[in-house]
C-alpha cells in the first residue's frame, strides 16, 4: 500500500509521517509528496493541515494539478482519505477564517469561529463522544477517550449524519466527520499518543 501525505508547505508533516510509519504494515510505504501524479495514484491519502484555512487552501491550489489529483483519487477512485485539523476543515464547502474561502465541497457545511466564553484556541486534550459507533475508525477506541485539539474554528455541518464524533467545548464541536471513503479529524491523531496511533491504524485497515 502506498500511503501518501500531501506536502503543501503546511506545518508539521514529520509528525504525521512518523506516526504512520509507526502503525503501517511492513508492506506499506509512506510517501510525503508535492507530486500530483503520486497523489492521484495513492492507496491512502492523508491531508494534514496547520495554520489558517485560506493559507492551507492556497498552498494546495498553487501546486499545479494538485486539486484535480486529490479529486481524482478521493472522489473518482474512492480511495480512503484522512484530513487532519485544517485538512479536515477543507472538506467543507466554505471557510470563514479571515476571509471567505471555498473548500473542496465534499461535505455540506461551513467552517466558522467557535462561539464560547472559554479560551481560544481550544487547545489541549478533550474527550470524544462517538456517535457512529460501528464505524471501523473507532474500533477499540473508548467512548470518552482523549484526543489532542488545537483550533479556533470548527466545522458546522448541515447534516448531522456526517458528524461521526463530537467533543464538547462550550458547544458540541465536530471532532470526526465522514462520508463514504472520506474521514476528517479536527484533533491531531499524530499527537494523541496511543489513542491517536490506534485511530491511524484503524484508518489504514479501513476498506471503504
Amino acid at each position, binding site marked *: 500500500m502506498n500511503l501518501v501525505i500531501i506536502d503543501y508547505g503546511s*506545518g*508539521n508533516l514529520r509528525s504525521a509521517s512518523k506516526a504512520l510509519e509507526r502503525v503501517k504494515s511492513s508492506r506499506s510505504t509512506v510517501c510525503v509528496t508535492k507530486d500530483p501524479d503520486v497523489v492521484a495514484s495513492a492507496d491512502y491519502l492523508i491531508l494534514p493541515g496547520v495554520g489558517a484555512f485560506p493559507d492551507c487552501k492556497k498552498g494546495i491550489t498553487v501546486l499545479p494539478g494538485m486539486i484535480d489529483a486529490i479529486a481524482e483519487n478521493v472522489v473518482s477512485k474512492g480511495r480512503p482519505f484522512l484530513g487532519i485539523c485544517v485538512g479536515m476543515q477543507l472538506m467543507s464547502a466554505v471557510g470563514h477564517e479571515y476571509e471567505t474561502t471555498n473548500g473542496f465541497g465534499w461535505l455540506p457545511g461551513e467552517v466558522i469561529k467557535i462561539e464560547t466564553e472559554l479560551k481560544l484556541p481550544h487547545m*489541549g486534550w478533550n474527550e470524544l463522544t462517538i456517535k457512529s459507533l460501528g464505524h471501523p475508525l473507532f474500533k477499540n477506541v473508548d467512548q470518552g477517550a482523549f484526543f489532542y485539539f488545537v483550533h479556533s474554528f470548527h466545522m458546522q455541518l448541515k447534516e448531522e449524519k456526517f458528524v461521526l464524533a463530537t467533543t464538547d467545548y462550550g458547544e458540541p464541536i465536530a471532532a470526526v466527520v465522514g462520508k463514504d471513503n472520506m474521514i476528517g479529524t479536527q484533533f491531531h491523531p499524530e*499527537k494523541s499518543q496511543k489513542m491517536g496511533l490506534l485511530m491511524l491504524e484503524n484508518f489504514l485497515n479501513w476498506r471503504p
Partner: protein
Amino acid sequence: MLSARVIPCLDVKDGRVVKGINFVDLIDAGDPVEQAKLYDAEGADELTFLDITASSDNRDTLLDVVSGTAEHCFMPLTVGGGVRKEADIIALLRAGADKVSINTEAVRRPEFVKEAAEKFGSQCIVVAIDAKRNGSGKLQVFTHGGRESTGLDAIRWAEQMVEYGAGELLVTSMDRDGTRKGFDIELISRISNRVSVPVIASGGVGGLEHFAQGVLDGGATGVLAASVFHFGEFSIAEVKKDMASRGVKVRS
C-alpha cells in the same frame, strides 16, 4: 470537557538536560530524548524544551534533541530558547516541534510575534513571559533568564502579545522559580483574566497541591514544572491524581 494539561519542562543546554535553581547553578542530569520518552510513557499532556544554550553555535544539538524526541513521542512538543528569526521557527517545526516559544526577541522586536503568527498560525506561537516584582511590587517583564529588566508591565505586555497573535502564553514567575512556594497566583490570574488565549502557569512548584492551584486559583489551562519531575519527586500520575481529587479535570 477539556482537561488541564500537565507539562513537564526539560531545560536543555548543549544537548543535555539541566535544571537550575533560580536559573543559576545548573545541575547536569541526563539525555533529553530518554527523559522525553519517560514523560510520554507516564502520560504527560505535552512536553516543553527550553534551550538555555548561550551561544548559537550549538543550535544543531537542540534540533537533534527535537527530532530524536519527535521520533518516539507522539505528543505535542513546544520548544523555546533562542528563537529569534523566522528561520529558527522553520528549523524547529521541521525537526518536529509543534509550537515554538518566543521570549527575548518578542521584547526586542514585538513585530516578530506578529509576523510569526501570520506566517505559521497563532496556534504554534507561544510567547513566554518571565515576570518579576520590582522594588515597588509592580510585576515587570524580565529577559535573559531573569537577569535583565525591561521596564514593561507584565499584564499589559501579555495583552499586547495576544493582540499581536500569540496563541498561548507561558507565564513564569522569576520570584518563585526554584523556591518551591507554588505558582505566583496573583501574576497568573491577573494575566489569565485579561487575555482570551490559554495561559500556562510556570515557576515555583514544590508541592502536589500547587498544580491544582494554578488551574483553580490562577485560571491557567496548563501547568508546567521542571525540577519536581526531573528529579523524580512527583510522577505525572501522582500530580494528576492530586489534581483530580481537588476537582480539576485531567486526562487519565
